[in-house]
């Protein structure tokens, strides 16, 4: 009954594992996998799709909520959304999840699609010298030019000298702060593993730090530092028990953080940038910019590598707990989404456009829904058929198809065969004729050369760098050849 809502269009290929539920090529969505979530926002048992839309990339940023095939609501966002997660803040009835949108240095929390809360990242430490100089400026103990000189010793300034004074006057009363921004966000269950347990927010920042926030009071429960800027994260475990945060960083490494260690416990050094990071059971699957997919243990030991046909655009996990099935969805730049179980490709989905974000989970009342957005702004919704079976053997490497393609061996004509026979019988004569003609040609060339010398045409180059080239054209050759052909055929 629930499917009728999506106006199910049965795929042309009956063997396909997916039903094409919805495709809107002009949904106008500019987003990434980190900004998409499925959540039962209203507690009515029906999951909605929540998308942090980057708008044009500079303006028109929106928090969009889809229900079925239609847009349910739209909230304006102040800045570009970096990440979006749904999580349970408390267990008060009704139990509805909140949405956290990370944007710049803030996290905006929405409950029931209404703005509820804003969290600001703690400011960074300020250079004491800079602090000192500015406090002097506040008390007008220092003039703008001296201030400039003092500050240039620390950092480069963007201001032109003539703008200095106005700037200093405007800003000198402000407390000096250094703000950083959030680069990725995730959730971590507080103390229970249940689906409806309260979760903490885990955020990675541009200042190479990871914070874990209390879900109710929004205090910082833990702070950890990384050697580089985090870009992707995967969190598992419970905060009060034991947890692992797997973080891909901008330096191309993956770090694994654990409870009670302020520094990374393990490090995986990749040979190219990680584009997607997904957890499969106890292992980590990483898609790299060099068109490879790697599997690692949670201690950072390499398990396998698969080579992909195109660059990775995004990755997500396909999890069907009811069937006990897990796989990795890999969006590729060749407009395909590959489904991998470990290193084996078990299914391929063709998409009409390049996929930029993937999300798999319960949408509406349908458990196995695949949601994708495309580079052109399209929205694709597919439903996994209940009868669909993923078989490892689906694409087991048999002999390549090319092996059964016939070799394109050039054919030979009857004339060729006849000529072969003629050569067999008259090889000696042909050879002698050729040698004779060759000698004659050489003789003719030599004569021409001597003649040129005698008539003082100086057919010699004065310098070695500009050699003189002689080009003799034998016009009789073709005639000779055709003559031979004519002779050859009647034999």
């Amino acid at each position, binding site marked *: 009954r629930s499917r009728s809502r999506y106006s199910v269009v049965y795929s042309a290929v009956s063997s396909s594992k997916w039903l094409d539920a919805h495709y809107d090529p002009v949904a106008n969505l500019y987003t*990434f996998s980190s900004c998409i979530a499925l959540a039962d926002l209203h507690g009515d048992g029906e999951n909605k799709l929540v998308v942090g839309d*980057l708008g044009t*990339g*500079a303006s028109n940023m929106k928090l969009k909520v889809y229900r079925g095939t239609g847009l349910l609501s739209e*909230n*304006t966002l*102040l800045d*570009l959304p970096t990440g979006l997660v749904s999580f349970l803040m408390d267990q008060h009835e009704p139990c509805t999840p909140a949405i956290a949108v990370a944007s*710049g*240095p803030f996290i*905006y929390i929405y409950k029931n699609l209404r*703005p509820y809360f804003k969290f*600001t990242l*703690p400011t960074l430490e300020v250079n004491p010298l800079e602090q000192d100089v500015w406090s002097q400026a506040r008390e007008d103990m220092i003039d703008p030019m001296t201030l400039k000189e003092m500050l240039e010793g620390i950092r480069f300034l*963007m201001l032109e000298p003539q703008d200095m004074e106005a700037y200093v006057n*405007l800003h000198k009363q*402000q407390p000096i702060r250094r703000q*950083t*921004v959030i*680069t*990725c966000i995730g959730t971590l269950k507080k103390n229970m593993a249940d689906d409806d347990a309260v979760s903490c927010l885990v955020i990675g920042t*541009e200042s190479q730090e990871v914070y874990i926030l209390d879900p109710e009071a929004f*205090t*910082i429960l833990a702070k950890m530092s990384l050697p580089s*800027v985090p*870009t992707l994260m995967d969190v598992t475990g419970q905060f009060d028990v034991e947890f692992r945060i797997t973080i891909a960083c901008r330096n191309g490494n993956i770090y694994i953080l654990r409870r009670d260690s302020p520094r990374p416990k393990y490090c995986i*050094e990749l040979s190219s*940038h990680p*584009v997607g990071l997904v957890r499969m059971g106890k292992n980590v699957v990483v898609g790299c*910019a060099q068109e490879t997919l790697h599997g690692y243990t949670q201690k950072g030991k390499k398990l396998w*590598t698969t080579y992909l046909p195109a*660059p990775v*655009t995004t990755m997500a996990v396909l999890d069907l707990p009811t069937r006990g099935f897990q796989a990795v969805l890999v969006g590729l730049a060749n407009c395909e989404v590959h489904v991998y179980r470990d290193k084996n490709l078990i299914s391929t989905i063709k998409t009409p456009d390049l996929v*930029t974000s993937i999300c798999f989970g319960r949408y509406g009342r349908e458990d196995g829904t695949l949601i994708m957005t495309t*580079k052109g702004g399209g929205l694709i919704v597919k439903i996994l058929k209940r009868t669909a079976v993923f078989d490892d053997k689906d694409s087991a*490497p048999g002999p*390549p198809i*090319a*092996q*059964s393609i*016939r*070799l*394109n*061996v*050039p*054919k*030979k004509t*009857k004339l*060729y*065969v006849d000529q*072969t*026979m003629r*050569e*067999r*019988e008259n*090889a*000696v004569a*042909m*050879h*002698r004729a050729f040698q004779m003609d060759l000698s004659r040609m050489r003789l003719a060339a030599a004569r021409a050369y001597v003649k040129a010398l005698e008539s003082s045409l100086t057919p010699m180059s004065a310098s070695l760098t500009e050699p003189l080239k002689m080009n003799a054209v034998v016009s009789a050759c073709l005639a000779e050849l055709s003559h031979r052909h004519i002779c050859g055929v009647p034999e």
Partner: protein
Amino acid sequence: MQPLTVEPSFVEVPVGFGTCKTVLITQCSYACVCFSAPELPILERRNWLIHLHYIRKDYETCKAIIKEQLQETQGMCEYAVYVQALILRLEGKIQQSLELFQSCAILNPTSSDNLKQVARSLFLLGKHKAAIEVYNEATRLNQKDWEINHNLGVCYIYTKDFKSAEEQLNMALQQNKHDMTYMMLGKIYLLEGDTEKAIEIYKNAVEFSPENTELLTTLGLLYMQLGKYQKAFEHLGNALTYDPNNYKAILAAGSMMQTHGDFDVAMNKYRVAAFAVPESPPLWNNIGMCFFGKKKYVAAISCLKRANYLSPFDWKILYNLGLVHLTMQQYASAFHFLSAAINLHPRMGELYMLLAVALTNLDDVDNARRSYEQAVQLDFNKCYSNPLVNLNFAVLLYNQGDKKAALQQYQDMEKKVNMLVESNSNTEFDPELIEMAQKMGAALQAGENLLWSKPGKESKNSQRSSSSKVTSSQQPLGTNQALGQAMSSAAGYSKSMQLAAGTVFFLLQEPEPDVESAPSPPTEPPGELEAEDDVEEAAEPPKAKEKKKSKSRTVAE
């Protein structure tokens, strides 16, 4: 700062307080609540977006964002400049990227990443010494970084300082194992000519990443070069298991299959390669020689001619063309292909020998004799020797009635055979060669002191041995690319096999008319006339067969 438009309220939570200090924000501008001055944009606020587009290879969008970001920050956003430089480098604008990386290094002199990229751009510009200096500077900022060590190693390879390169690459491996580093280290040993050590490195590499087809193929080709065919085949086979379309592995494995006479299996593999790389000269050469092995001579010529068209200056293809034309008794054509091959590769005795065979059949005995003399001389100068050259010469001389010179050649052949047997007791000779030599010996009343090591062995073994003997002669081709070198030797390998088999074949053909003492004419090369009934060369009409048959019959009479 954008004014709040529709958002009604947000609760500001100062960090450190457990409870919410509710501050209601008016609609006009929430920024006003805390600050009187406009909020300054954060320099790094869009770094994550730039990075995200960069790693997804969406360079156009990435450049647009960088442009905006740099305008907003007046070029002070280090990461935006950094990624712009990376993209410029990918676009081939290396000098520009170098300048941008240098400005990054000025913006943030404590980052070893910036220095690493400066060095990388210098490296790509071919300024290896400058790159080494900058890398060393980067090492001071960041002691433990495999990438710096690896790249330093590569730079040292280019400055021909193999010792330092080896040291740096080993240091890189100690910190973190990467396939690339193994590849480079192996390359150094190959450049130094130490194949054994290179194999050792590649073995470790394959152990570390057992599914890297490039490593497997390289190791397989190196084993092949050393004549360890069993191991070579094992690794090439593994490479093909993981990547059945691996062109290099197919060619190498196929050439080995050809050696063992598995022409159909080799052809199956070649079909895959032909689909992937349809215009490869060595591939068509090998396919041609596969047809030759299957005695489908017309198809062989077709394929070889295509190989020759694709690579007109490859003497090996010309050599094979000469060989096939000799088989087809097209001596005039064979002469042209062989003389072309000699022009391109004048220092190979066997080429002159084949030319001499062609000339003999063209009734040009004087030139044939000269060609044989050249062949014998070249063959004599080499570290290995081919007794066939002398035997064929002896036959010619005998047929000319010059028994004395023939005896001399026969004795030279005996010397070579004895030398080969001494140097390697396992050396086996083609039974046809032995048979002919014995006939010749009887005709010349030469002594029976020739010891063929194990004449009882079957031809299958001897074929392998004769081919391996020839292969070992393949001199290194002098390129600094390990793979390239191994590749060509792989290609040469298959040809050498054909060479050995083919020459023996001509040895049989040549003396036929005049060796009186031969009790019965040697058997025809089997299957020559059945060759054309396959679909792949249906163009050959049955008429041709009859003619050939009559022709060969006349020879036998």
